[in-house]
């Protein structure tokens, strides 16, 4: 019998944003879909995020951002991951991400961009289909 390794996901709330309802619901949905989920809690600085990634070695990092700080914080997180040679982790951002910001964020290596009203299964499938390792 082949034992399949569980997909390990880090759900993060970067910045000062306290709107964590979506992040928590998503964390639970990913867990219910059989993944190993770590939820960082709120108020994560880019350094906090990167340190947790180094410690936990997740397959995917999902950033939940509703405060409008995504264009400022996401590139910093991506830059710092690169500095640590981490390039095989799926990094996605969702929350309130206006369409017009997507290209900018994509150019920094981010994916996802799921907003309010997204079916949880859509995100579960997205994670499964976009892993880099």
């Amino acid at each position: 019998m082949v034992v399949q390794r569980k997909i390990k996901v880090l759900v993060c709330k970067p910045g000062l944003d306290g709107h964590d309802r979506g992040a928590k619901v998503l964390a639970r949905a990913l867990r219910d879909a059989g993944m190993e989920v770590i939820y960082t809690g709120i108020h994560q600085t880019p350094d906090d995020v990167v340190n947790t990634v180094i410690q936990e070695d997740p397959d995917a990092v999902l950033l939940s951002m509703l405060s409008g700080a995504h264009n400022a914080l996401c590139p910093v997180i991506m830059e710092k991951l690169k500095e640590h040679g981490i390039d095989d982790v799926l990094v996605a951002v969702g929350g309130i991400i206006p369409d017009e910001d997507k290209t900018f964020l994509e150019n920094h290596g981010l994916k996802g961009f799921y907003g309010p009203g997204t079916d949880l299964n859509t995100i579960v499938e997205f994670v499964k289909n976009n892993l880099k390792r």
Partner: protein
Amino acid sequence: MTIIDEQKTLKPTKKERKEKFRNLSNIEIKRLYTLEDIKDLNYTMDLGEPGKFPFTRGVYPNMYRGRLWTMRQFAGFGNAKQTNNRYKFLLEHGTTGLSVAFSLHTIYGIEADDERALGEIGKEGVSIDTLKDMETLFDGIDLSKISTSMTINGPASILLALYIVTAEKQGHTPDQLRGTIQNDILKEYIAQKSWIFPPEASMRIIVDTIEYCTKYVPQWYTISISGYHIREAGSTAVQELAFTLADGFAYVESAMERGLDVDEFAPRLSFFFNSHNNFFEEVCKYRAARRIWAKHMKNKYGAKNPESMRLRFHTQTAGVSLTAQEPENNIVRVTLQALASVLGGTQSLHTNSFDEALCLPTEKAVKIALRTQQIIAHESGAADTVDPLAGSYYVEWLTNKMEEEAEEYFQKIENLGGVIPAIKANFFQKEIANASYKYQKEIENKGRTIVGVNDIEVREPCSTPLLKIDEKIAEEQIATLRKIKLERDNDKLRRVLGKLKESAHGTENLMPYILDAVRAYASIGEIINTLKEVFGTYQEDSIY
């Protein structure tokens, strides 16, 4: 056979749309309500005349026939100058009270040039660092004539001090000022997350503001005890009702422990509720809230003054109910939610703008939201009589039911040792996380239909124009702060902050020291950091 017996025996002939009908609190709703369901209802004891105990029918005898609710649109973005312009726009279009949304760095008492403020400045509210910003925010607005609500919690006493000093500079005394600071830290630990200090220190600061305002700012509402955020975080309506009132009782108990007379401070406590999609459930929630508060204040806390028993509240329509899909539909959702709050007897109302699932509201969207209130007020007839839904079998039954379920929660919270121990045990946080997950699953399983979201397959691209915050705002805010720090008397500043720290170590009321610091142009961040040295900070368990 009576009519009631006859109705009970008449079985519906066709299969119903659902096996069970449940509202958003998971209360099962029957096919029909009759006199039977409210046969124990005693008009005088359970409802009372409007303006009389237990205030179920409303806090005033003539309600909106006397004065309409305050149309108070929550607004703040960018810098103080931009928000000042938005206030003037709202005032020109008939808004009757101001409501300040602060930037996240202000909410946490973090200065604009702190690295944690990166990307946050002016995005979710107006960026305020010092008295200078506050003077700009209210420039040309007479603070003795308008009432202002400030959504601020951790640094609430500092923002109140800033408001008092800004008014002083306009030539007004504190006793002329009318408004509200949210100042409700308990719901921050429970749901909204913008705490700074540990709960015990936070409660001391809150009681300080209550004590100070009772003496010097008597027209000010000292706390806006808020269910709004609890609901937005995912609670049911019953949980919103129960947790909010439990918080309210905790504040009453803390102030009484300080030795304050309940009838001196309780009349200046106010409430803030959400208005979500289930119309009757929301109406009943407000009615039940009034009755529960009145009964507890009278019977448990020994209030004698009817003002202490009157639950006055602000309502905001449910942000979380707004959809990013077909956003124009939100105008209709907001209308129904606003109508529910009016039929529930709200004292003031914020109607959300239809584009808020996408961005901070544009001017056009804000205007429609305000017009929605005006149409309800002037065209619908809903404001012509007091508590028009009273006496409905369904409404009275559901009001009773929600009160009963709230009382069960009060018992559970008491068994855990009270609100603060229950927070530390993650009781509220777990209840809310469970409720929000259940709600989301119901939508995904199509147990609940959200029009335009889970009932359609074809998705049109979004074409709503969005409000963008210029990134230059952050640079300007940082420059303003640095300029103030160069220009002010920094020796004096160190002295006043030193005294503040000393008083924080003791038991004195902090307000006079905070006022001195504000007058010396201390930034909110500097005052908060001074207090953090004494009180420390709080960390939550990140459960989901």
